[in-house]
């Protein structure tokens, strides 16, 4: 996760990111990066801390309002209930949307699997809903915050029902 933060900082510090998003003559897909930090609570007495890095490509040429990519989350704590779940990594394919009226809306939806230590244990879907914040709406780097909900089914431990988790997050979005 140190690498993800450094990567975000490097992109943000580069000259291109410091100004408004320029008009592009070649409307190819753009790199979209999301970096979120938050707390997650599940059906357990203790919560977890979660860090997420999303690397994706925009689907639309200019505003990068929608993007699809791979997201890696590292969760540490007891929200996943099992002792080996105290360090869980999540690998999802995630769609991200940042737009709406005045470009304030932020949403993601993704799904994939989770690994507890080195064991793949659960299949999951996850969504985030929140707001962006930036000095001006057309900045390339915006802050995001909001709530997250996840439903995971631990098939490795043969659980017969999916279990929910809820959380809050704060992060950055490069679009």
């Amino acid at each position: 996760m140190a690498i993800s933060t450094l990567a975000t900082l490097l992109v943000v510090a580069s000259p291109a990111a410091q100004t408004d998003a320029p008009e592009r003559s070649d409307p190819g897909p753009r790199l979209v990066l999301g970096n979120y930090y938050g707390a997650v609570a599940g059906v357990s007495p203790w919560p977890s801390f979660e860090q997420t890095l999303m690397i994706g490509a925009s689907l639309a040429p200019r505003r990068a309002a929608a993007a699809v990519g791979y997201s890696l989350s590292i969760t540490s704590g007891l929200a996943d209930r099992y002792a080996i779940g105290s360090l869980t990594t999540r690998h999802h394919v995630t769609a991200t949307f940042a737009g709406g009226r005045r470009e304030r809306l932020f949403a993601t939806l993704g799904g994939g699997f989770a690994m507890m230590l080195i064991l793949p244990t659960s299949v999951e879907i996850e969504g985030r809903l929140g707001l962006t914040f930036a000095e001006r709406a057309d900045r390339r780097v915006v802050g995001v915050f909001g709530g997250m909900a996840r439903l995971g089914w631990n098939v490795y431990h043969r659980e017969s029902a999916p279990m929910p988790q809820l959380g809050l997050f704060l992060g950055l979005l490069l679009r």
Partner: protein
Amino acid sequence: MDPIARVTIKTMIILFATSLCAVAPAPLNALTCADDVSPDLEEGSFAYYRESPENAVLWRLESCANTVLFGCSLVSDDDTVTVDHSASTCASADPRDGGRGLVTYRPQRLLLPGRQYTLDCGSGGGPRIEVVDGLAMAPLTLEGIEARIRRDDHSPLCGEYDDYLEIAAEIDADASAFFTEGGRIDLYVRGEYLDTVTSERRLRYVWPIPEAPELELRVVASDGKTNAYLIDLVDLPRDRAYIPSCAVAPTGEARSSLLLLAIGLLARRLWGRR
């Protein structure tokens, strides 16, 4: 870089550094849950009786290989009472389990209150009990017995705990007084002795789950009177998922506070320039 983004990035740095406090202690300290269920019976001693009634039939868990063959008596300063001992549960003692069985010592007459007796089986001093005024409580009545299979962590880190049987019942009398004076609950499977429980809490954790259609609970009062109950073990309700109920407190306080101090200094540096 616009100011909002700059502030956001600084916040991210602080947040990421703070995350090290959460990551470091939490996984390492997630493992203390199972201590709750260690057995509370010590082999050989009467230690769990505090005060026995005058008509108590004493009992203890013993290794069947070492069960006494000679006569035993209870000896106090001014009284000696012969006891009849019986080790019928040793017939089915499982050697893999250390061959433990329940041995009872029935005094041939009432014990005198206000005295401390020592069990003497010919080899000198043995475990001691204290006798108080009064007769034994009646065996507990268990009502609304419910059994359920509960999930446990199944974690190799926690010692690979299996699913267990939870038995809950409504008890109309003072259960802790019953157990304190020497009452117990014996578990029998197919007529064979399985285990003894001396608290309601232990009844909620029966492990391993017996592989039999029925489990018999015999509530034995301190004077030997018994109430028996049968629990059907076929098609018990099961937990759908594992939900931990014990509280785990992350430690590593010292390291976290140093880290927080470092973060505080870093925060002053990042914001202090204005």
